[in-house]
């Protein structure tokens, strides 16, 4: 069993998940994605939602056991070298780790979940635009159905009331 605990943020202010196992993390990301797409479909999306749509999984600040996970080896190595020059290597290594496989595995597992839910989408690593487009379309259709259904119910109720009176 993987004992790792994950936290995810978007930007410096929005916490998507805090100290949870990998499977629960997948649930949270899926939930946040759905909320973001629905918010966007009614023109109420926020900056964090747009970041996820535009940048995909690379918008997520992922922490594994409270260490920031990096996926770019070149930047990581140049920053750790800079940290060594600044006598900050120990602090840096205690709070950061290079793990490009984590994003790849999140991408694979999330796409599998979306596929099971009926959404066949390309890689989510760099953007989520196709997935958002599909979710937004579904949300808009459901809204239209709900409006029609509500309209039908009101008309039916009024017709009943007219008959009774």
């Amino acid at each position, binding site marked *: 069993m993987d004992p790792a605990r994950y936290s995810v*943020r978007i*930007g*410096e*202010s*929005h916490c998507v998940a805090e100290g949870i196992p990998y499977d629960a993390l997948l649930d949270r990301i899926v939930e946040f994605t759905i909320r973001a797409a629905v918010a966007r479909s009614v023109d*109420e999306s*926020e*900056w*964090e939602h*747009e970041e996820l749509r535009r940048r995909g999984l690379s918008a997520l*600040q*992922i*922490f594994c056991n409270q260490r*920031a*996970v*990096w*996926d*770019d080896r070149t*930047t*990581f190595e*140049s*920053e750790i070298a*800079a*940290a060594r*020059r*600044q*006598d*900050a290597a120990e*602090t*840096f290594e205690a*709070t*950061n780790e290079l793990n490009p496989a984590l994003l790849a595995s999140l991408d694979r597992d999330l796409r599998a979940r979306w596929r099971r839910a009926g959404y066949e989408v390309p890689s989510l690593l760099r953007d989520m635009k196709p997935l958002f487009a599909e979710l937004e379309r579904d949300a808009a259709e459901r809204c239209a159905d709900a409006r029609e259904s509500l309209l039908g119910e009101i008309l039916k109720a009024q017709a009943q009331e007219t008959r009774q009176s």
Partner: protein
Amino acid sequence: MNIKHAPILERAGIEGSYVSSSLSWAQLQRGTFDIAYSVLEEPLLRVAWRLYNVAFQAEAKIEPNRSVVAVLADQRTRARWFGADLGSDMIAAGRDCIDVRTDGPSAFFSVTIDQSALHREFPASPDADALTHDLPRFSIARDPIQAAHIRGVTRLLFSRPSVAQRMASGTLIPLLADALGNYGGCAVERTKCLNRRFTAVRACEAYMRDHVDATVTLLDLTTVCGMRARSLINAFEAVTGFSPMDYLKRLRLNGVRRALGRPARAHTRVIDVATAWGFWHMGHFANDYRAMFGETPSQTLLNSQRQFALG
């Protein structure tokens, strides 16, 4: 024209006008910030031409007894003066303080007037009154002819440096007095909506600056300014061009850059500065910083330490 360049606004801002050291500014757009500027100095006024390569915001107090008149130096510039759109057919004026935001590359001509010196020189002149006491605290007037006139004369001053020193006051003071004499009639009225939005954004900015190392959420900001979340997002987009959280990130990245640019002690570490400015994920921070300023945070620190060592 003697054109100087500066990588930070403080330097060019203080040299080019009478702004005091309380200038707070931020680069809002990606790129390596560069200001090309030129200043003509006379006892009564300072005339400045400034060209910025990326979007920025600046707020500053003006030294006492000074007033500023500004026009856009070209048609491309998109700017806001105290939150209100400033077009090329407009004249911006103010005293006590300035608040400028731009959407991209921009160019301005500004004239800063020394009110005391002007009154000493022309004690009974109605022109002097128009340029000093009658000037509102901050405002914009739509006057295409006078705006073009000020732009044309200022451009001429900078293109003819040999005569500029002799004619700046003599040409500009009557011209500005004429423009500002009719200023009230052309003033663009600020709507209640703009005032409310601008006040909300300023309150949020102050809160963001006071909580640089803390998690600031949209909910916190709505509490600070008393607006609904959607209204606040609209206000930020109208006044700054960015959503609140995006703007917060840009302010913080600028804060880190300033701190790394003038390290307080020899052993300044990027990781400490970034954490002090609320960045918890060093990977994202390093990428965002590089994307914004065109260099890594450690390069900024290294450069400033080298400059510090060179004295």
